[in-house]
């Protein structure tokens, strides 16, 4: 490590979201009400590019907070507004909140976007964009995907129905293109200008369907085609696939991560691209570790890949012996510092770490 900071949150979080001004947001997902949504200001050491050693301010500060009656499973800021959207069980409705750090430090609940619920709906996955207006893309299943305007709560788009599989992630590739990932691993592309278009990406490897999948996408730099960035999918057994959306018939690469099996379920599976390092990604959700991989050496044979770095901090943190070993619930990359990540685990710990590139050997 070049640097490692460990913090303890009052309640564990399963999301870490970046907000304007380098703020970080976490939220509780406990069953009882009184879950807190916290917007945090990271310590100055994380805000500057160079790493400082000893610094008077080393703590996260809670800038503002809100109280949620339901567990918060997903949270996304709505760009260019002071709003954020959350979702969580028991149904697939969304809650809209106002963050106004001016006269008060309380995040207030503003409205709810409700969806027609079938019974047994799980929680909605969400993505936001503010290209034409503040929109939120949401849905818990493939046949319930829609885009709603955040402020007016009007429905702007509904995706064509292609089945009722549960979704694991969804995202805007650009202001017109959506990418959806189901838990079965199937990827779907949609153009919102053409209401009935929903095209499946055919490149899912044929593996037993007992696995659950999630995906990670990378936001392209300005000017580049969004679909030129490969999409990575991670399965609950550790399989990683890279796909180029322009050539969906074949996989760019396939690799296997060394993860404990049987896996602890797919609840917290998370895979993400490094925003500042080409070809690097991180995975977590199998145990108390976060793995970092360099995908540039991968091929399509599905060999086992060696992680460049493994963060084991969460596994050692926890209250000795009592209860289950901590499980990493979420991780995210720092937007500017290339090798810095933040990770959270089920015991409430929040780590910020900066790994050193191993020199030479590989």
């Amino acid at each position, binding site marked *: 490590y070049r640097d*490692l*900071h*460990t*913090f*303890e*949150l*009052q309640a564990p979080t399963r999301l870490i979201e970046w907000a304007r001004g380098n703020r970080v947001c976490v939220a509780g997902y406990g069953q009882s009400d*009184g879950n*807190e949504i916290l917007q*945090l200001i990271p*310590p100055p050491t994380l805000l500057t590019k160079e790493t400082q*050693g*000893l*610094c*008077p301010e*080393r*703590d*996260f*500060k*809670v*800038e*503002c*907070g*809100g*109280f949620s009656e339901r567990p918060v499973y997903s949270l996304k800021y709505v760009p260019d507004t002071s709003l954020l959207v959350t979702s969580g069980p028991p149904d697939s409705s969304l809650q809209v909140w106002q963050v106004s750090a001016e*006269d*008060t*430090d*309380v995040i207030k609940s503003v409205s709810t976007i409700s969806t027609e619920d079938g019974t047994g709906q799980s929680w909605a996955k969400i993505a936001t964009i503010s290209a034409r207006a503040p929109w939120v893309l949401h849905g818990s299943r493939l046949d319930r995907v829609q885009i709603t305007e955040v402020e007016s709560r009007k429905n702007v788009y509904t995706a064509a129905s292609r089945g009722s599989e549960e979704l694991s992630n969804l995202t805007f590739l650009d202001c017109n293109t959506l990418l959806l990932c189901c838990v079965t691993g199937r990827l779907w592309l949609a153009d919102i200008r053409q209401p009935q278009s929903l095209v499946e990406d055919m490149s899912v490897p044929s593996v037993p369907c007992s696995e659950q999948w999630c995906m990670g996408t990378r936001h392209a730099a300005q000017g580049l085609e969004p679909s030129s960035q490969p999409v990575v999918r991670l399965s609950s057994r550790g399989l990683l696939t890279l796909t180029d959306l322009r050539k969906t018939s074949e996989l760019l690469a396939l690799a296997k991560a060394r993860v404990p099996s049987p896996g602890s379920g797919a609840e917290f599976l998370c895979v993400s691209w490094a925003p500042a390092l080409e070809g690097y990604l991180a995975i977590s959700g199998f145990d108390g570790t976060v793995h970092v991989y360099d995908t540039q050496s991968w091929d399509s044979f599905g060999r086992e890949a060696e992680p460049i770095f493994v963060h084991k901090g969460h596994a050692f943190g926890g209250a000795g012996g009592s209860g289950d070993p901590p499980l990493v619930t979420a991780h995210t990359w720092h937007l500017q510092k290339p090798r810095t990540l933040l990770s959270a685990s089920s015991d409430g710990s*929040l780590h910020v770490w900066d790994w050193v590139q191993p020199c030479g050997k590989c």
Partner: protein
Amino acid sequence: MPEIKVTPLGAGQDVGRSCILVSIAGKNVMLDCGMHMGYNDDRRFPDFSYITQNGRLTDFLDCVIISHFHLDHCGALPYFSEMVGYDGPIYMTHPTKAICPILLEDYRKITVDKKGETNFFTSQMIKDCMKKVVAVHLHQTVQVDEELEIKAYYAGHVLGAAMFQIKVGCESVVYTGDYNMTPDRHLGAAWIDKCRPDLLISESTYATTIRDSKRCRERDFLKKVHETVERGGKVLIPVFALGRAQELCILLETFWERMNLKAPIYFSTGLTEKANHYYKLFITWTNQKIRKTFVQRNMFEFKHIKAFDRAFADNPGPMVVFATPGMLHAGQSLQIFRKWAGNEKNMVIMPGYCVQGTVGHKILSGQRKLEMEGRQILEVKMQVEYMSFSAHADAKGIMQLIRQAEPRNVLLVHGEAKKMEFLKQKIEQEFHVSCFMPANGETTTILTNPCIPVDISLGLLKRETAIGPVPDAKKPKLMHGTLLMKDNSFRLVSPEQALKELGLAEHQLRFTCRVHIQDPRKEHETVLRVYNHLKG
């Protein structure tokens, strides 16, 4: 309705000096008397004119309580007691009483000698002020007068820091001062029993922080020391005699052992003597671990840490030295600093806050050319690092304390109103108590519901229990009696006994009422029917 009034004269909504006035059941108590370290003029003292426009402070205040020796809690005490004028009792714990005068004298020296201030207290004033101090032990109930009592609880944070419970009759207030809910290497965690005060006054400076773990801070500290020593540099750590110094020593000793390092570590002798002396006096104030090691061996018999001699400062090669005083304003640490400042391989690590005007403060603010005595300019090329291990309670800690004490109301000081709204809601939601956040000079009134104890006579009790079923312990039971109030005592007795005691005869009042009954039957038949009804 009875009420408790709280007015922060300092703290309230700014960090800097703590001085809170509490009015409870007719008694007036001042909590802490701190100096604002950021100002150079009269703004650094709390505004005492608020207390009483005319009339002597000694008559108005029943006592003053000081929570711990940090200057932002006791810095204005000599000014208050000697220059403004107060002769009543001042309560603090034994370690605080021992350490306060040293810090006050140091501070006075810096302010008057170095900066040439005139409106400041003198050494004699500090001495006179300390004569008014009454030292208290932990968990010892101290009767200030017939009605007012106080009790100190362990607060962690620094040696001798205490939280105080102030009780008059059945109304009580708990003031936390600065406290810490997580134990560190040399101090335990704050603790209080379920005393259920009407009001808990808590600091909230760090309520909005999520602290970096101690392990990380320590790791970074050790890394810096190691790097400097590896490249042949010298590390100077100015410390106050007690507290953090022990922690850092233990930390370095363990690290040196593990890494098998050879560079010498020194502890200046003045420090050893003072520290040993204080530790012997206040060993009960440290935590379990320290106490155990103290029993087994002398605190300062470390394998790798030796006593320092002035001449060693000139020795070539790497070394680490702990020296007093902590702000580099005089004495040995300043001497060593002057010798080592010119070499960029060396490092000085400031372990805490430095008062304005000290060399410590100057170098922390980035100054690299210092004017020393005799107009000599000292160029500082050595690395300057700052590291704070000071321990305050964060949001989690505050919730823990509230959970332990179970107050009926909470008042927060030491934070900014806007930034405390979230914490206020959190406390109100979780504990269903009211939370207040007054500004400086603003008085908060808290209504209390005191229980008035009443003695009940045995005869009455026996009679009531004989009637009807056994009363349920949890349900209130209605009973009849006569309340006798004499002086300050209340007694509940049976009416007969009351009459006897008061020497009154019982009066019997008979009410008659004329009722018209329309009944066709004969007179004596109707009377019989009514009579049978009543009997049955």
